[in-house]
């Protein structure tokens, strides 16, 4: 089984389209889920999944089968999502799931949730990705750092900066955390 997987990775590295299709079908769900966590829009996540695998296919010769496919695909997906976030304006429409999230704390009104979501969209994309993966999705620091291609300390610093900027923005809107 492991030999078979290793053979697929080697064939993919050599540019074999069938091996690429096998990897696509094996990993598309994981890549889609990862991107969805960042962009929070199913249609965009589908488009970016295709974009990610296109980048993966284009870079097949640089792929190292010894390092595995999952981590590499996640890094490529993170960069594809980051590029998309850079082109998006903060005022763009909020994803549907933000409109009516489950409210665990009744003290937090819908208005505050909406303002928080908008303030979050105004953060620089690099900080936004770090915060969403670390704070919202509660992923371990190592996983976040690997996906972003930076050290754990740098990832923590990005999360801290994101939270600080978010607090400042909310305070300017009259919301005191």
């Amino acid at each position, binding site marked *: 089984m492991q030999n078979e997987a290793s053979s697929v990775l080697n064939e993919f590295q050599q540019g074999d389209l069938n091996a690429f299709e096998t990897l696509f079908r094996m990993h598309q769900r994981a890549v889609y*889920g990862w991107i969805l966590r960042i962009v929070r829009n*199913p249609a965009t996540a589908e488009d970016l999944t295709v974009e990610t695998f296109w980048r993966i*296919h284009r870079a097949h010769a640089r792929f190292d089968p010894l390092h595995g496919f999952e981590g590499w695909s996640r890094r490529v997906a993170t960069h594809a999502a980051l590029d998309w976030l850079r082109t998006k304006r903060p005022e763009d429409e909020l994803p549907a799931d933000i409109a009516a*999230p489950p409210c*665990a704390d009744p003290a*937090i009104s819908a208005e505050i949730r909406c303002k*928080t979501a908008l303030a979050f969209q105004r953060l620089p994309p690099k900080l936004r990705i770090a915060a969403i993966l670390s704070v919202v999705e509660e992923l371990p620091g190592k996983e976040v750092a690997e996906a972003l291609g930076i050290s754990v300390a740098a990832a923590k610093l990005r999360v801290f900066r994101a939270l600080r900027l978010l607090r400042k923005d909310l305070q300017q809107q009259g919301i005191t955390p």
Partner: protein
Amino acid sequence: MNAHDEDRIKQLLQQALPPIEDDAEPERDLWPAMLQRLDAKPTPPPWFDWALLAGLVGLAAFFPASIPVFLYYL
């Protein structure tokens, strides 16, 4: 920012952006779209990019002192 503030911001953020479920999957088979993307011819860079590049090369050739300034703003 103290630990209390940090926790409160985290809580606000989690309320504003609820986590995505682990079993999320695409609504359609993406392989046909992937094949279409692979078959698409790469679009050549627009003429404006070439003009910009030529301008930069010209600037560097006639005013070499501008190179460090350009690199600083890069």
